[in-house]
């Protein structure tokens, strides 16, 4: 199983959109995927047609001291999703205080795989700028250490650029991530220019595919589906298809 970690610089960078649609594209290529949501916002599941009222998730199960394997949802086809789960105030407190070993153990369990085995594990991780407990950080580290591909979804907009350029903490955290331009809008001058700036400054780490601004993505999310189900002839579908092929091609030769 190959692991892809998708993050964004700041909140709203589109990491869960990228993760969910990348999984859908992988599925189109004939792979089985496992989606894992590590964000408390818990919205990866919505891309994967899980009922919005469904509170279940791995964090919720762990806090309740139950087996997290129960919280795996089928997401159509060979794709499965593990939501974060809804945590109310009390449960959230307990989650924050959760011991490091238990979280790392969870990470290892997920990566060790379970049946039926998945070809790809796509992890939607929280934004770089957000603060986490040390335990959570070490779990993130466990995932990103074993990931064969780390993608950073960056909208070509000024906030993402300033964080990435001028915040030392973010820059260090992003050091081993590939940058994926998301929501690129060539008809907007500032967007186009910043795309060029990103390409210039992070030339060696840019993913050669960009995801354009396409309201099909937002509409697909609103209708609880991926863009491949919602509008297969949209430009975004083609871009995610290309992204999936790129991911696969850039890992050729590495052991899975």
């Amino acid at each position, binding site marked *: 199983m190959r692991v892809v970690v998708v993050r964004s610089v700041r909140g709203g960078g589109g990491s869960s959109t990228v993760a969910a649609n990348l999984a859908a594209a992988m599925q189109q290529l004939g792979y089985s995927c496992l989606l894992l949501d590590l964000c408390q916002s818990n919205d990866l599941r919505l891309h994967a047609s899980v009922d919005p009222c469904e509170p279940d998730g791995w964090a919720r199960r762990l806090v309740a001291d139950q087996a997290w394997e129960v919280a795996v949802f089928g997401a159509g086809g060979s794709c499965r999703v593990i939501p974060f789960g809804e945590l109310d105030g009390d449960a959230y407190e307990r989650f924050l205080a959760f011991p490091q070993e238990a979280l790392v153990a969870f990470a290892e369990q997920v990566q060790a795989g379970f049946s039926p085995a998945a070809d790809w594990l796509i992890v939607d991780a929280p934004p770089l700028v957000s603060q986490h407990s040390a335990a959570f950080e070490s779990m993130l580290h466990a995932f990103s250490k074993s990931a064969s591909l780390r993608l950073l979804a960056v909208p070509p907009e000024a906030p993402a650029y300033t964080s990435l350029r001028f915040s030392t903490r973010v820059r260090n955290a992003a050091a081993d991530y590939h940058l994926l331009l998301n929501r690129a809008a*060539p*008809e907007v001058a500032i967007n*186009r220019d910043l795309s*060029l700036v990103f*390409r210039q400054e992070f030339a060696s780490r840019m993913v050669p595919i960009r995801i354009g601004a396409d*309201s099909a993505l937002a509409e697909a999310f609103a209708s609880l589906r991926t863009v491949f189900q919602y509008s297969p002839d*949209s*430009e975004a579908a*083609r871009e995610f298809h290309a992204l999936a092929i790129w991911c696969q091609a850039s890992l050729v030769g590495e052991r899975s």
Partner: protein
Amino acid sequence: MSRDTGGSDRLVVRRSQLSVLRWLFKPDIKRMFEARYDEYRGARGYSRIGRLLVGAWLYFSYCFLKPEIFGVPSWRLLKVLFPHVDLSRPRLGDLLRMPIQLIWLLLFKQVSTRDRRRIRQFYRLADLRSRRVLFRLVALTRLSIRKLQHTFARRENTESEGAKPPRESWELAGFTMSLLLGFAGFLAFICITVPFSLTAQAGFVSALIITALILRQVPGRYPALMLMMLSLIVSFRYIWWRVSSTINFDDTLGLILGIILLLAEAYAWLVLLLGYFQTIWPLRRSPEKLPDNTDEWPTIDLMIPTYNEELDVVRATVLACLGLDWPREKLRIHILDDGKRDSFKDFAAEVNVNYIRRPTNEYAKAGNINYALKKTSADYVAIFDCDHIPTRAFFQVAMGWFLKDPKLALVQTPHHFYSPDAFERNLGNFRKIPNEGTLFYGLTQDGNDLWNAAFFCGSCAVIRRDALEEIGGIAVETVTEDAHTSLRLHRKGYNSAYLRAPVSAGLATETLSAHVGQRIRWARGMAQILRLDNPLVGPGLNWRQRLCYFNAMLHFLAGIPRLVFLTAPLAFLLLHTYIIFAPAALLLLYVLPHMFLASVVNSTTQGKYRYSFWGEVYEIVLSWYVARPTTVALFAPDKGKFNVTAKGGKVENFYYDWVISKPYIFLILLNIAGIIWGGVRIAFGPEDEVAAVLVNLGWVLYNLILLCAAVAVAGEVKQVRSAPRVEVDMPASIRLPNGRAYQASLRDFSIGGLRIDLEDSSVVGDYTRVDIQLQRANRTFSFPARIVFSNNQMLGLRLEPMTRQQKIDYVQCTFARADLWVRWKRDYDIDRPGVSFGQVVSAAAQGLRISLESGPRPLPWIVRGISFIIRSLRSVAPVRVEAKAL
């Protein structure tokens, strides 16, 4: 709006047509019937009887047939079995068509592959088999050649070890080599001069032809060289024989005509010989790398001379030049406007390029450039005709060699045309058959380059300024200033280079008359150079360069010899003189191998650049028109003026260019008279002449085919757009105002608009204003556009007003893509002479039909009658059915 009402209208009609179904069936059954009924609808809709017929059939098949027969849904069976019958609007002829088809279906097994494909497969298989049989032989030949090369190389090495000064390559081999050459020459001399009996000649030529056919199967250049040798032997032998034993001294008229024919043949033979020399080893020069440090890159003046072209044509070129990959401060773009138009001046100011206007107009383009040379100062001068759009890599490709070779004065790149020329448009073979220029830019210039004789073609070239100034600027004495300029550069000891990469693209001449006008100018100019500055004499050139230039000029003198060939057989058929004084069988044994081997060689060496027989068609079209100007220019070289080639126009309606085709119609009539008279002579003439008449009839027939094909070009096909479109297949995307973006593929583009394919164009809805996004070098650019038409899969877009940078980006994303034209060149297959002859014949048939249709009164009626009969017969003929089980 209008589309919507149309749709609802159709809905209403359908409802009324099928209202009876509502009472008979459940809604989903009714819907099913409606769908099936719709599928049977022909292009012109239902007639009353069609409605009844189809309805009855659908009901019958629904009630009585099993759901699937022969692997197709049974209700569709009639459509599948009788594809050529429109059931929704049956005609009387269908009563004949259907039984015939039925009988055919009963008697013959239907195979899903088409006949033509099977023939092609058979051809391929046979080709493969023959190759396999030949392989051992071929492998042995190659092995021995390789061994020979090795021993040769070893000997060379041992010789050069003695620290000898480097000598000319043909002197290298020394004594043994000259001995060998002498021996080979002696053998060749015997082969050429010894007279043979009929049987000996037959044996000799068949041995040569078989060797040639075997050699043809071997890829590579050495076999091609050997083929050339064989062809040379046969051709020499032919000419020797013609001179020594076929001149008719008994008859004055025959003697005169015979000598004229012999001279024409000698000309053709010389051109063939020089052509072999020119293309013996095309250099295939590759671009030289530029230094990494851009400070070392030289400065360039890019000149775009224009006289009467439209601003739109020039605009694309200038915008593409602005996007060239070269340091901005080192590239100065100048529009050299000889037309003195303020619109051009304004445009130049708008896009921030230099505008040069000269007070006078003398010496046309050459004078225009020479004036600009005085006003500019960069190290190099690049010249682009105003319709030649450079791709952005142009200078990166072209400039490297200048830095490597300080004596290099000229780099020429091919003129690639993205619009069809008169031949391609009127014959409808654009991008299927290599056009006229492909041979020159694909092979001839490359061959010239080996001998350091690649010459300047007026555009898409870079010249070193100090060299150009040394010879006094562009030559102004002749109307082909380009070739003359490079001739002068070569005389001064400068080198030239030719790079084969298509790094720019331009407009081809639109109409046949413009094409002919342009070629008349070239022919006249070349003849002028031959007189004023003969490359065979004068200082500075080596003999190889002399021959290359001489051949280039000789090529344009082809008019009169070609006319001689077209009329020569008539001398025998109509005038009854023997201009070739030889028995028919012997003549055939001499002339056919000569022609056959020449065309085998040409098909082998030129296969990708010119298909067999097409060269003759191209030449015939021009022959009449270049005959007079070249002759005049040879005798009075200072006459003649520069005429500008009109481009970017449009042909409003189909018309037949009678003026251009008049001489050829006359020749066709002559040939037809010859055929008729020949037939009469076979029927009533003396017995011993029949063979000669048959040979001449064959010749006349061949001429007639070529003439008819030439005449087909005169039927000018309608062209509606003035801005020609470039057909491509590139990914693009379209973005709607609602924020949705859809995948699309770009079908074609022009400077003002584009056409894209969409999976389903109904997604566009009521929007008219969209953004089209194109990619280049991994960057995406967005251009505002307005939808001007749409059908269910395609959108036609017109670009909205854009900023200067957007315009540059648009040209960069379309015309100036570095890889765009390279792909075009690869599309051509290798020549197959049989197929090529078939194409010429079909063009000839087209030509015959067109000229008869636009001829005087009774002719069009006859043609229409005949084609009606053929069409109706063909419509009755059975059609192959694509069904698995049949």
